[in-house]
């Protein structure tokens, strides 16, 4: 019995149990199988897999052959190396805590069993994704988590916006998967296999090769890397496929925490890191990754500052942080990217769950209708601040170490792109604390502003301020545990310059390699100091705007109405897609394909030819006049013409 198999299959079993028995038998106990399963996975991860990985043991085993067709042969197999181990820790930890949190958050919901079934299924797919030893299994998990994301976003079945958001997430992801799939094809065509080990072992051999792709001669590693990166863009919500993530907040908050912050959306980073031997071969691809990451990071941050939906702000923040991770990968600092992934999982999950706790209490998402919640929800407030500080990269908190490492890597990488993205990252370092603390100040400080109109959740009842109370223990305990993570998780990767051992990066070095940086200690301190200072300024500015001069934001918004609107409307990207892709497709389907091609052209021929024959038939029967002499004339004429013909031909 291979113990690690329990990790993915326990949640799967929980899913099966829940889907079969949940509705009728388990009902409000439906969380038990799921929670037990995921905690079981967590325990196996911590007790068995992690120590093995720490000991440098790599597991690469096939379970069974999945598909076999000619030379195409893929298996269901598992690769457990340090990278997988990190991911397993992240996934099982966050998943366990969020499962537990959900017991409280979802309590009394009519789709209780369904929720936990989906969560378990998601956990299964996510674990399969990170544990697979080949691209097919990666793809399996990849699409699987997307599916669960679809289910969970659209969890509130009767809410149209939820259904729309789920669908959008799935379809937008499909765009990315389209590229990813083709990338997988290219890998198979190039290497003849889809298993990581042989592919990466031979990756160096394709350096510099060109291939004809749809008429263009392109560099083979670049092509493969960029195609794979398409998938990452979709899954990790990067420009231009980021549009689904904010909408995905329609799902229950634990879902946002688990799927849209801690785990699923980081699959893209995991994949890029996993494929680093390929990415490393192509400078173009690396730069693309870095620039897309940096751009998304900055872009999402600028949107976040004007949004009012508590979860959307955090969602844009997620986008932004994911961008940072890509930025790290793009400059070759994969370990830094994964490190940020790891710390981000804690503080972002915490942010979401804390936000969930708030929403649970006030039943609205709009921060303009909150305020002054500090006194009612002290624990929530505390963990929220911890998470925010971590996200803002305040020294001592997890986020600081990872973020700093990314910014330093960007600065220290030898390319000009590195310098550019460093500047962008620094800007993000300013914006992140600003919008995070804007959120905190608007939510927890000041006076309560809500209650003057119907809540968006449709619960119907008016919630007077004094009704607010702290969430139950089953929710706050996971919050506290995550808060511990948000503070301390980063301590495993304290850089040498601050007296740490950078254990995290060393642990991952066998998989991700070690980037070469040029830079002095002085520079490193400088960069670190700059970003920290800037972060503090960000917080201060937020405090100034939203605690001191609360009238100022409105005035500024009115003054720079154009910029404000662009930011508030998310750069009109959704509208742009609607206008360039969705609408034309619908229009073509309806007005061209149905109305013209099918109805007029093809059916025109299909019905027209028989119709013409029918008309001709009606005409032709007219020659049958009923007059015997006419018949005789036809006979005679037939004879005559035949004779004439024969005469002519002779």
């Amino acid at each position: 019995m291979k113990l690690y198999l329990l990790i993915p299959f326990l949640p799967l079993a929980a899913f099966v149990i829940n889907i079969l028995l949940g509705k009728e038998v388990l009902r409000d106990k439906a969380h038990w199988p799921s929670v037990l399963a995921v905690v079981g996975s967590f325990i196996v991860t911590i007790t068995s897999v992690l120590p093995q990985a720490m000991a440098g043991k790599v597991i690469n085993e096939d379970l069974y052959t999945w598909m076999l067709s000619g030379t195409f042969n893929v298996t269901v197999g598992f690769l457990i190396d340090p990278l997988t181990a990190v991911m397993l820790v992240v996934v099982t930890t966050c998943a366990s805590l969020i499962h537990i949190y959900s017991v409280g958050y979802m309590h009394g919901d009519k789709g209780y069993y369904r929720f936990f079934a989906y969560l378990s299924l998601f956990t299964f797919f996510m674990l399969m994704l990170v544990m697979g030893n080949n691209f097919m299994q990666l793809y399996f998990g990849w699409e699987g988590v997307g599916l669960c994301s679809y289910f969970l976003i659209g969890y509130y079945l009767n809410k149209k916006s939820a259904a729309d958001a789920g669908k959008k997430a799935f379809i937008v992801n499909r765009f990315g998967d389209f590229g990813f799939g083709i990338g997988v094809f290219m890998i198979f065509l190039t290497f003849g296999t889809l298993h990581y080990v042989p592919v990466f072992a031979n990756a160096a051999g394709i350096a510099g090769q060109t291939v004809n792709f749809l008429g263009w001669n392109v560099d083979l590693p670049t092509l493969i890397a960029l195609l794979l990166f398409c998938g990452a863009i979709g899954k990790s919500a990067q420009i231009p496929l980021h549009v689904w993530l904010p909408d995905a907040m329609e799902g229950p908050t634990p879902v946002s925490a688990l799927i849209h912050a801690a785990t699923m959306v980081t699959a893209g980073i995991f994949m890029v890191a996993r494929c680093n031997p390929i990415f490393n071969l192509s400078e173009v691809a690396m730069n693309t990754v870095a620039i897309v990451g940096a751009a998304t990071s900055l872009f999402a941050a600028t949107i976040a500052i004007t949004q009012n939906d508590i979860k959307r702000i955090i969602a844009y923040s997620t986008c932004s942080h994911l961008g940072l991770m890509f930025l790290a990968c793009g400059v070759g600092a994969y370990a830094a990217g994964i490190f940020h992934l790891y710390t981000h999982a804690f503080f972002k999950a915490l942010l979401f769950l804390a936000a969930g706790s708030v929403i649970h209490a006030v039943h609205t998402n709009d921060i303009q209708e909150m305020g002054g919640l500090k006194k009612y929800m002290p624990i929530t407030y505390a963990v929220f601040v911890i998470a925010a500080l971590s996200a803002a990269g305040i020294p001592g908190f997890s986020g600081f170490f990872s973020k700093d490492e990314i910014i330093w890597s960007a600065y220290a990488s030898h390319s000009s792109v590195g310098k550019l993205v460093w500047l962008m990252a620094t800007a993000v370092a300013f914006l992140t604390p600003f919008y995070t603390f804007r959120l905190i100040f608007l939510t927890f400080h000041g006076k309560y502003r809500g209650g003057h109109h119907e809540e968006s959740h449709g619960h119907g009842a008016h919630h007077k301020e004094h009704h607010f109370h702290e969430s139950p223990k089953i929710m706050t305990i996971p919050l506290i545990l995550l808060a511990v993570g948000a503070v301390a998780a980063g301590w495993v990767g304290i850089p040498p310059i601050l007296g740490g051992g950078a254990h995290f990066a060393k642990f991952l070095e066998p998989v991700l390699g070690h980037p070469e940086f040029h830079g002095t200690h002085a520079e490193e301190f400088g960069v670190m100091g700059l970003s920290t200072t800037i972060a503090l300024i960000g917080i201060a500015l937020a405090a100034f705007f939203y605690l001191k001069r609360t009238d100022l934001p409105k005035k500024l918004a009115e003054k720079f109405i154009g910029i404000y609107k662009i930011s508030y409307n998310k750069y009109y990207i959704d509208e742009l897609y609607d206008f360039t892709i969705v609408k034309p497709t619908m229009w073509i389907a309806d007005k061209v394909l149905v109305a013209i091609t099918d109805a007029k052209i093809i059916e025109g021929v299909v019905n027209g030819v028989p119709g013409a024959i029918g008309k001709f038939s009606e005409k032709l029967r007219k020659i049958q006049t009923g007059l015997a002499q006419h018949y005789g004339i036809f006979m005679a004429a037939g004879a005559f013409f035949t004779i004439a013909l024969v005469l002519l031909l002779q």
Partner: protein
Amino acid sequence: MNFQLPDLTPMIPELLMTALALIVILIDLLIKKKEVIALISIAGVAVVALSLVGSSGITFGGMYISDGYSTFFKLIFFINVILTILISIKYIAVEKVNYGEYYSLILFSTIGMMIMASAGDLIVLYLGLELMALSTYVLAGFIRHDIKSNEAALKYFLLGAFSSAFLLYGISIVYGLTGTTDLKAIASFINERGLTDNFSLLLSVIFLIVAFGFKIAAAPFHMWAPDVYEGAPTSITAFMSVGPKAAGFAVLGRVFMVAFVSVKVDWVAILIPISILTMAVGNIVALSQTNIKRMLAYSSIAHAGYALLGIITANNEGLASMMNYLMIYAFMNIGAFAVIIMLRSEGFKGDSIYDYEGLAKTHPLAAVLMLIFMFSLTGIPPTAGFIGKLYIFMAAINAGYTWLVVIAVIFSAISAYFYLRIIMYMYMKEPKTSVQLSVSPGIALALAITVIAVLVIGVLPSAVINFARIAASGF
């Protein structure tokens, strides 16, 4: 002078048939129940059919030939006559023309066909043809009190006589050119004198084609057919659509393959457009018909077009396929007409295709039978109609007329529409009028025979194909 009676063995069936026809006339005077006459006729025809065995030979100095070819056609005629009589028994009573002459006329007409099939000489051919035609004219107008029947008879008669004149003129030219009317002698004369490029010969060929084309209802000599088929008593329509057509093909095959074999190229070149035209006119005009008899008339024209492909191949295999086709056509067409006749009852015409609406609900068995016949006429396996077409197409492709077959199959696909229309009315519409079926043991038997034949030949065609092959090879 030593008068020696020629060898009469080859003629025994014809003689017996003549005797039978005469007996039928005679006993008609004695017997009131006309059903008995019908039964006697059927029994008689059965006996005549038995006498076919061992009747082969050539007599009257080559003027009369009884070989496999003629035997096969005679078999078709017998099937035709027996089935026609079976479906007539009740029908002519319903039409109030229950006279004994009806049966004897059918028998005489059949004798004419038999003579045509066996004719080795143009004179004999002409006599047979006229005997057949004259009897059929009368039969077409047999419902004397019905104006449509009169009209049918008149048109048939006028145009038939007109076509006979062409036939005779053609014969006279051939006679003038070759000095003989014997088919084999004509052939050898043409060969010896190298007349293959002679225009007069071609003229006679054209005249013969006009006459035979009239009999088989090939376009543009088909125009009598729809009117006559519609107007004639339905049983006679069934009879005419099979018997005279088959007889026409019999003489077409024999005259052209024996006498004019050396000008093959020419008559094939003439028949090809005729065949295409026939398929086109038959199938296309049938699409817009609302009278089922008329529709089947056009269908019958179209089928002549397919069968012509067998002649066009101008080889034994083609002839065999043509014969096979006609045999199968006899079953499926008479079967279809039998269903039509069932719908005819006192005060109800039952020949409009709208009368078939909802038949599957009121009379499911009749509908199923009609369905089978319709699909067979379309040529959908596993019915006999498919075998017939397949054989024809195989022969034609083998002779190199792939393009012609492509045209034929496309027309056959078009034809599916009007056959399907009947099925559609029967199965997919709700009944509007309550249709009374006039069922009789005779019709039941006829339907049983035809449907079994259609299905059995459809699945196990070996016997028929084999027979047709042997028959065609021996000539």
